[in-house]
């Protein structure tokens, strides 16, 4: 194994003479990344070091038994510079955490000196077999420390009014636990534990840690077992690597590649980490558009937009789980070009375009022209998606319908995003994005035509819904039958109409 590791932000200039050996600060102590290959997961590495609190339940980011906390850049401009973010250790390559700070359940507290989250879980019966518990504790701790989590206050000043069934009176967002599965408790005591949490103590070192900046990304090059992991210093370096190495794979949160490695035995010879490239991490708005960095995590985008794009706001809580959204990026979701990725239908309805940057420069591609076939796109091998651009103004009538067996953290059998401008009772403009009904995400062009210029009313809507039911080429599989998928296309428009008419 050969490795180098220097601060990436320095461009490799300042500290090259004192390159630290690759390592991760775990529970306050630096552990060298010894014996690690580019494909060793953080989970396997931690467990191999004897930190066996984090467990493998599924190895694909679905159960959260492996959740750990990472010190990450702030998601809110008005908050402290560092946030504790929970991620699935089974997906993140250990090499990707070089130079970073990680906390596991063992680092939060110990028997006899429990962390407040651990205390509430223990005394309320939040653990039965205990196997999922360390992961729950980490997800819950991330929400405990989330800046902006504030108790709702009732009129009489008591902190006892919960705004909705998915938030506690202490501001705890239950979606923070949407990526953690428990097979024993039925979740009620875990909810009670979450809702009983107060605010971090003034002396809480982990709360205090947030006041300092997070560790800078390092320029990591790790080679072992015939494969290489590289965290490049810049976008240019990244695209140059991609140009040189046709078999390179790009990872940000590794929420997709990690599954390929763990479940399907993929062992790509070169892994290029792009999640901390500053060029991919900006978010800005002008009068004409919103530009979203493709390397921001979905959580970061969600917090930064703060409801500004209602269709995206509807998407976020239905996009996988918080644990996945903490790692997954729009660039990754569009880069894998899965026909069942949930971002694409929404961005199609928003008429978004992508900025693709390669060694030769950048270009803009409308998302509607981006997909070319099953998991293929117009993106060249050496290009990276750097930005997603959403034009303004936004349509006035929008809805995102996701059909799945489970409400939290499931994969769509059908996803339909609709954006309509209804002017004086007539549809002036329609954009409909579909997922799960063809080899690619697609626009429902015939339905858009049927709607455009038609009254937003009973018979024309019913007709358009029928057209929508005939878009795409849905298949039958273990998620749904083709018949149901067609029916759901049709029903999605009927439901939007009923809702907009206040009847549902």
């Amino acid at each position, binding site marked *: 194994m050969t490795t180098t590791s220097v601060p990436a932000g320095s461009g490799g200039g300042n500290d090259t003479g004192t390159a630290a050996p690759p390592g991760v600060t775990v529970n306050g102590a630096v552990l060298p990344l010894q014996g690690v290959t580019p494909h060793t997961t953080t989970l396997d590495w931690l467990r191999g070091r004897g930190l066996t609190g984090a467990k493998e339940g599924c190895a694909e980011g*679905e159960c959260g038994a492996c959740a750990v906390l990472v010190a990450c850049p702030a998601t809110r401009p008005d908050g402290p510079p560092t946030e504790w973010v929970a991620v699935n250790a089974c997906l993140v390559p250990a090499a990707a955490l070089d130079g970073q700070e990680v906390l596991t359940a063992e680092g939060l507290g110990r028997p006899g000196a429990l962390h407040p989250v651990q205390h509430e879980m*223990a005394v309320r019966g939040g653990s039965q077999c205990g*196997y*999922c518990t*360390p992961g729950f504790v980490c997800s819950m701790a991330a929400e405990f420390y989330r800046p902006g989590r504030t108790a709702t206050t009732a009129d009489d000043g008591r902190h006892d009014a919960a705004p909705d069934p998915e938030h506690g009176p202490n501001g705890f967002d239950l979606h923070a636990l*949407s990526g953690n599965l428990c*097979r024993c408790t039925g979740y009620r005591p875990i909810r009670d534990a979450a809702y009983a949490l107060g605010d971090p103590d003034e002396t809480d070192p982990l709360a205090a840690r947030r006041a300092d900046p997070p560790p800078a990304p390092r320029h990591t090059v790790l080679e072992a077992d015939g494969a290489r992991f590289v965290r490049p210093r810049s976008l240019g370096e990244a695209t140059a690597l991609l140009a040189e190495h046709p078999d390179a794979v790009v990872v940000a949160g590794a929420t997709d590649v990690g599954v390929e490695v763990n479940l399907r035995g993929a062992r790509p010879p070169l892994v290029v980490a792009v999640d901390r490239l500053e060029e991919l991490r900006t978010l800005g708005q002008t009068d004409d558009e919103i530009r979203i960095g493709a390397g921001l995590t979905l959580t970061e985008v969600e917090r930064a937009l703060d409801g500004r794009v209602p269709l995206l706001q509807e998407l976020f809580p239905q996009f996988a789980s918080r644990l996945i959204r903490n790692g997954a990026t729009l660039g990754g979701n569009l880069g894998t070009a899965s026909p069942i990725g949930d971002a694409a239908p929404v961005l199609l309805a928003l008429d978004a375009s992508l900025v693709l940057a390669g060694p030769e420069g950048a270009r803009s591609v409308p998302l509607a022209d981006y997909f070319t076939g099953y998991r293929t796109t117009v993106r060249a091998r050496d290009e990276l998606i750097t930005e997603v651009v959403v034009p303004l103004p936004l349509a006035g009538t929008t809805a995102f319908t996701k059909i799945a067996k489970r409400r*939290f953290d499931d994969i769509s059998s059908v996803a339909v995003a609709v954006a309509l401008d209804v002017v004086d009772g007539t549809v002036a403009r329609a954009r409909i994005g579909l997922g799960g009904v063809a080899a690619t995400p697609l626009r429902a062009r015939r339905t858009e035509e049927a709607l455009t210029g038609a009254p937003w009313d009973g018979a024309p809507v019913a007709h358009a819904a029928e057209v929508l039911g005939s878009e795409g080429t849905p298949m039958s599989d273990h998620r749904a039958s083709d018949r149901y998928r067609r029916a759901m296309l049709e029903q999605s428009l009927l439901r939007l109409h009923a809702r907009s008419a206040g009847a*549902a």
Partner: protein
Amino acid sequence: MSALSQRPPDPVVGRAVPHESAELHVTGHALYTDDLVPRTKDVLHAWPVQSPHAHARVTGLRTAPALAVPGVVRVLTGDDVPGVNDAGVKNDEPLFPDEVCFVGHAVCWVLGETAEAARRGAAAVEVDYEPLPAIVSLREAIAAESFQGAQPTVARGDLGSGLEGAVHTFSGETELAGQEHFYLETHASLASVEDDGRIFVQSSTQHPSETQEIVAHVLGLRSSEVTVQCLRMGGGFGGKEMQPHGYAAIAALGARLTGRPVRLRLTRTQDLTMTGKRHGFHASWRVGFDADGRLQALEATLTSDGGWSLDLSEPVLARALCHVDNAYWIPHVRLTGRIARTNKTSQTAFRGFGGPQGMLVIEDVLGRCAPLLGLEPHELRRRNFYEDGQSTPYGQRITQAGRLVTAWEQVACSGELERRRAEVAEFNATHEHARRAIGVTPVKFGISFNLTAFNQAGALVHVYKDGSVLVNHGGTEMGQGLHTKMLQVAATTLGVPLGSVRLAPTRTDKVPNTSATAASSGADLNGAAVKDACEQIRERLAQVAAQRLGVPAPDVRFSDGVVSGLGTDETVPWDDLVRSAYFARVHLFAAGYYRTEGLHWDSREMRGSPFKYFAHGVAATEVEVDGFTGAYRTLRVDIVHDVGDSLSPLVDLGQIEGAYVQGAGWLTLEDLRWDESDGDGRGRLLTQSASTYKLPSFSELPPVFHVNLLEQAHEEGAVYGSKAVGEPPLMLALSLREALRQACAAFGPAGTSVDLASPATPETVFWALQEARSAHGVSAGHVDPAADRRPPGPDPAAPERRPESEAVLAELAED
């Protein structure tokens, strides 16, 4: 009150205490089998070579290419087995098969220095297969008459006259799917060899004694040469009752042959594709009611999908047949059971053990027939409840019928069902695109192993010189809180604080010949054994205390670490008493034993009193169904459940809530799909990962979830008056299924009978409500009013069910 059930004043049992390992759980310090690997030197990792065929003969096996992979140490094949090549006890589960019987069946195992090396080695092994015809679905098996094992019948009364005398008769079919256990911890074993060749296996097993037996027979050793330890499990749910043995045997065989520790941990996909699940069932039935809707006669044939081998299919089927009656008196009954042989994983125990499947059949019958009888479903159910003095179809007398009535009324009252039913009607009248409904169902579940011999347990309790107490018992901890309850039992019996008692991991060299921790009986059996051991020690200490306090021994009292005597103010601290007892050469440890009295079961006749008692419960579930998608949400759940006098209320509450949600998963969400096509993937499990097989998550937690323990529920003759709790509440989730059925029906005209698939996924709910919407007459479902369609009877050529224990007892009787 019996001595077993009576509590002393101020007992430790009955207190709501957290799980004994809670602090270890929440800090990540609790160790599970696979967590031992980084603490063990030179561990080898095992990886299976899995069959891609549902059914094929293995005609060639070349392991040399695997041995060429760097890091591969050895490939284990059938030639390596020194003892019996069987992973079970019925000689129908070869550990290394010549004929693979399902997709994923392990042909051989590769041992590597790392899991990665073993995985690569497994990919390099070359296997030649000669594909054979495969039966995948239950319907295919029924059509092909592919059955295995006994075909028992439970019968009472005169079915013919019962049906003839009925005013209303209906017939129909019911199909219900299986369920994956999805314990968060997959199967895991770590085996090593002791200095003298003995084998030590740490295993995630609910049945350490059977793991020990099977490891011994595979290795050709005696049981005394094999020790099995289970620290704790990350969930079991029945999936680790029979299934861990083969994996433990592979690890042990590898350790024996290499001299190094061998770790075998299944990945999630391996676990899903290799290990057994809850049995799916098919039932065809004919039922008769009188003019008032009272059940007169029921004839049904239940066919379970056993998979490729018998495993526990026979006892699961027996329990299913013994629970078709659920809470209802049916004068004339004939219930026949069959086990299909299919080319799938060998289906096995799963919380409820056939009970849920049996109960689902009668609840399905009642739910479908109620609208046709013109009765509200809850009214139809209530009208058919058992009364004391009646007996079950297999002949056990009903003695606690009043408990079910009390629970039913309490749910109606605390759940404000009358008011809420009116609100539901109002909601349904004013919402075009959504419907709500409240389903209410009872549970009556028999407690004890049907197989009488399993109803025994042992314990070993040590009191050390310093007064501290260590409890060993035969039960295993899988999250159900058994160890917590055992600590409470020991502390209560010895009269010491809970903190003075510790529990040791379950080991076969401490307590031998144990039964599986299963059938909800862990606390009943092991609790009574622990109590017995503690009482022996307490009696000896009472003699010592009597001298010190100057009172007769029967007047000595033990409470909270203080030993006192009637009629004296003098007391002795527990620790002092123990110390002086040691110096007085008093025996300070004891083996406890318990066997459940009063059980009788004839499995050939399917008659007797197999259960010590019944556990009862009632649940009311309110749902809202979206007419556009079939998606639904549970709005509120109210439960009253009978746990006797609770040993540990926090534990019991957790069991009830967890079981309900797990049952809800089985009935609505968890959707096992197998490739039934004729393509290359035939027989493959299509839902073989967490991304395709969905368990309940936080989104399935009912926002309002009220669970109450039935009060004044003392159980005479059970340890400290308690009742078993593990399995029964799972079936409370049938109320959710019935609520969904009623909500679908509410999209149609009054009197609509709805067929609902199981699981009732949003898609199947959508089709059910669409059918209800289009119903013009009374029935959207397929209940056949004609009574001429008879369920098939048993095959007279099927083998007799004759468990080993009954055979041995019969021999003893003949001698």
